């Protein structure tokens, strides 16, 4: 081996290592980015009127109605609106351990928004992750999913976005450290993980199935949350839609698994959930409440049904073995459940469907990762209010009431009663989440020492 070859080979190895390092750094922030976002699950009436108000008749009306429908299906508003800011004007900071990235203004303002974008530029951004000036977008923007969007749909979305009240507002510059601040590093990430493509219908499947697949894997970008990511922050296709940790929440398994997934849900029930935020099995809270409130509750029955048909076709994720729970923890958990949970979920856990989810068979309870369940117990969770079911039914916070051990015990009990089965939960899991969510410590148990203190 010549010196030159060795050097070249060494350089190549170093190059690959650098690329990997970049990928890992970028990946880490994507992984962390998924949901440390402010939960603003309730659309304001002003936003609702943009998302669902009337569009005047006119030559463009059909195109604009279609464009808005698609923009709602893509839930653009959730990320492109900062708290208290105008809809679609951007400025919401997506946090990472290393810095912040800001969703841009996508109203029709020519200078700060996308008023001057051409349909070509917009299509390239949606499907290739490259902006109007040719800069690569961070994959916080879900182009790995949007790449399947059709040109016609892209054009319609752009046409409608340009009619959204234009707001002059420049989102702040992103604040990322080296090497993540080098947009070129995304090229490396794209090269390794991004597969540009377009939606190709599967002729063996029904039109509904294909329509559902186009939505779920395209505009709907369900996999952005529900597919776990690898170390570099790219979707793991081997665990496609099998559920993922979102830092302080869990996006559940969407496959046909009967414990953790949608195996026990019918197509109608899935449609009802996406339409109203609640069904006989579960209520949408946390990040999914936002998706329902801003997006799915406005979609057509036909599209929700198509999505459900596609999702119901997913092969069940493999069951995982779970250690048996400690009988003492189960006894404590049963006591806590009877005293503190039965008010809504009733003594037998059967709940009151559409109000308080039944716990036997609950997928949220049985996710491999207990974070979502613990989040609901400790911090609470609000059901998405929707036009047809406006009640924001809310699980209250138990942080002040339950110690870490008590929260863990009742979670363990829920995961292993009525035929449920999932790994026990430890007090340290609860402690970790309590800290991460900055929740209060439990009220000290009264150690009353009598009259003389």
């Amino acid at each position, binding site marked *: 081996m010549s010196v030159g070859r060795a050097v070249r080979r060494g350089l190549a190895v170093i190059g690959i290592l650098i690329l990997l390092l970049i990928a890992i750094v970028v990946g880490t922030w994507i992984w962390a980015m998924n949901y440390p976002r402010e939960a603003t699950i309730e659309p304001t009436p002003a936003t609702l009127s943009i998302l669902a108000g009337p569009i005047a008749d006119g030559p463009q009306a059909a195109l604009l109605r279609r464009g808005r429908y698609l923009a709602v299906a893509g839930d653009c508003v959730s990320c492109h609106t900062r708290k208290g800011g105008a809809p679609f004007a951007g400025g919401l900071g997506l946090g990472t351990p290393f810095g912040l990235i800001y969703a841009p203004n996508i109203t029709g303002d020519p200078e700060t928004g996308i008023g001057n974008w051409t349909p070509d530029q917009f299509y390239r951004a949606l499907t290739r992750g490259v902006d109007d000036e040719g800069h690569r977008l961070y994959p916080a923007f879900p182009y790995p999913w949007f790449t399947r969007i059709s040109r016609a749909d892209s054009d319609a979305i752009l046409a409608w976005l340009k009619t959204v009240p234009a707001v002059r507002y420049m989102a702040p510059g992103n604040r990322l450290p080296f090497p993540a601040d080098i947009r070129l590093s995304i090229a490396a990430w794209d090269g390794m993980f991004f597969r540009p493509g377009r939606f190709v219908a599967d002729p063996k499947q029904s039109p509904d199935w294909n329509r559902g697949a186009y939505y779920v894997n395209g505009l709907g970008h369900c996999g952005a949350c529900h597919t776990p990511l690898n170390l570099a922050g790219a979707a793991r296709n081997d665990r496609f839609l099998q559920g993922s940790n979102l830092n302080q929440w869990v996006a559940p398994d969407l496959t046909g698994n009967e414990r953790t997934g949608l195996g026990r849900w019918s197509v109608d029930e899935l449609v009802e959930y996406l339409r109203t935020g609640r069904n006989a099995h579960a209520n949408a809270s946390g990040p999914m409440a936002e998706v329902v409130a801003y997006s799915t509750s406005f979609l057509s029955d036909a599209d929700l049904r198509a999505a459900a048909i596609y999702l119901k076709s997913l092969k069940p994720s493999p069951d995982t073995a779970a250690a048996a729970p400690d009988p003492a923890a189960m006894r404590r958990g049963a006591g806590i459940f009877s005293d503190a949970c039965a008010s809504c979920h009733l003594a037998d856990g059967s709940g009151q*469907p*559409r*109000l308080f989810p039944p716990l036997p068979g609950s997928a949220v309870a049985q996710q491999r990762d207990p974070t979502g369940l613990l989040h609901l117990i400790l911090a609470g969770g*609000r059901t998405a209010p929707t036009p047809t*079911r*406006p009640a924001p*039914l*809310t699980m209250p916070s*138990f942080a002040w009431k339950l110690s870490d051990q008590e929260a863990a015990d009742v979670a363990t009990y829920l995961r292993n009663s009525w035929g449920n089965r999932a790994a026990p939960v430890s007090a340290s899991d609860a402690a970790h989440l309590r800290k991460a969510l900055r929740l209060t410590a439990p009220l000290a148990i009264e150690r009353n020492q009598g009259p003389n203190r």
Partner: protein
Amino acid sequence: MAMREKPVDVVLVGFGWTGAIMAQQLCDAGMNVLALERAAARDTPVNWAPTFDQDELRYRWRDHLFQNVAYSTLTFRNNADQQALPMRKLGAFLPGTGVGGAGIHWNAQIWRFLPSDFKTRSHNRQRYGAAAVADLSVQDWPVAYEDLEPYYTMFDKLCGVSGKAGNLKGAIQPGGNPFEGARSEDYPTPPLPMTYAPTLFAQAAESMGYHPFPHPAGNLSQAYTNPLGMQLGKCTFCGFCEKFGCGNYSKASPQTTIIPYVLQKANFELRTDCDVLKVERTADGRQATGVTYVDSNGTEHFQPAGIVILTAFQLHNVHLLLLSGIGKPYDPRTGEGVVGKNYCYQTMGSVDVFFEDKLLNPFIGAGSLASVIDNYNGDNFDHGGLGFIGGAYIAALVTGARPIEMTRVPDGVPKWGLEWKQAAAHYFLRNFSLSVHGSNYAQAGNYLDLDPIYRDHFGRPMLRMTFDFTPNDLKMSAYVTDKAAEVARRMGASSVHPKPRKGPFDITPYQTTHTVGGTMMGDNPTDSVVNRYSQSWDVPNLFVTGAGLFPQNAGYNPTGTVAALAYMTADAIKSRYIKAPGPLVQA
């Protein structure tokens, strides 16, 4: 100089039951509505979550959901010979404050008045002669039961009321209240199941020829979705209903039935911690221009509005009219004036019932969990020779057994010491109390006006209440309480302790929060503040809701009628007033 706010079509003063009903009705009709609430936003998971709402000390005894008298109170005297003194501590009645008002801590007892209750003067005069009403200032209502029936039904559907109809379109139904006015529809949900005490009561009452029926309940027997899409759960009988918020969404309240719906409307806004000081008018005083309110920084705001609706609690509506100089204040010396006139209450009796051999488990309860007989209410019985008019329902009402309030011992046992303790321990699970929920009829000396001495937080005169029970009502309470005791004895009780209401009215012990009158509705401006559409005779773009509209109080809980009147008013505004603003009834 008050800050001038952007004008709205309608401003609502107070955001409890009637504010929420008005907001929903008028927003759905396309009007821009602003609700001003003097205290804070409140909601189930934050303020009365099932994790902590069963706290008798904090809610019942430390007034956690009630009006805080440190900030807002009134003065009281029994008669004009006394000096009125401030109500320094809540006692007899417990108004609410904050979003939802008293609609949070009520029992959700949802009644309709009897058809004859709307004709208190003419009906009783006709049946019992002029002497029967001679000492009373009772009046007929300007509306009939039949006018309100569709609106009663709307409120039943809003709340999902659990009950059993006794009169469906004129056909008497077994198991319901045979005395009630005809209903167009049965209750939306079936009656609550009964615990032991009401079951024993119903058996005894039936054996005596009475007609027991389940109390109409806004604590629901099953999950329910109302016409607005709002969902209520089923009651789990926790026993912390009356004076508490409901943690599991099973009690009808503005929050569980309306507010989330209306908050989604682009034409609605709620402003909290904004206390309205005055209704402002044009120079000639004939039109309201809006209201002046003060925010929590002490900044004054002028809120222009096309229509002003007073949707606060009865006492505050009266107070605000008096402070705004709208309508002629009532003067008991001359009998002239109308604002503050016919202030009424509710004449509450009870019968404490103790058993030796039966475990009643009274801690299992709900705000409206009761078996009731209505045989001695209103004019459901012949008052000939009795010397009084009016009546009361008798209810084996088991709202729960909060031990600080409801550790009862038989009369004769001391209130403390060893004997008390042993009796308390023995009887806690073995007693309950019959409620004798009576009418309260107006007399000339009972009224509300402005206090000449005491000033409120903002330096305005406090409201002054001059009130005592009339001989009519005390006789009524004695009579019906006696009837209740007879049923209790039939139940096989070991001891029965009738407690008819005795005078004078005492503001310290809790009785009920059903304060009514003072802004009464009527057929003409000389004897009423508002017309049948709750519209001010003096200022046609000012409407007043609430129990202040009652010319006198019937023997039922008022909220069902309060809500029905609000729906009727909203209907008149939507269908008539906005098309042709001006008086809806010519004076």
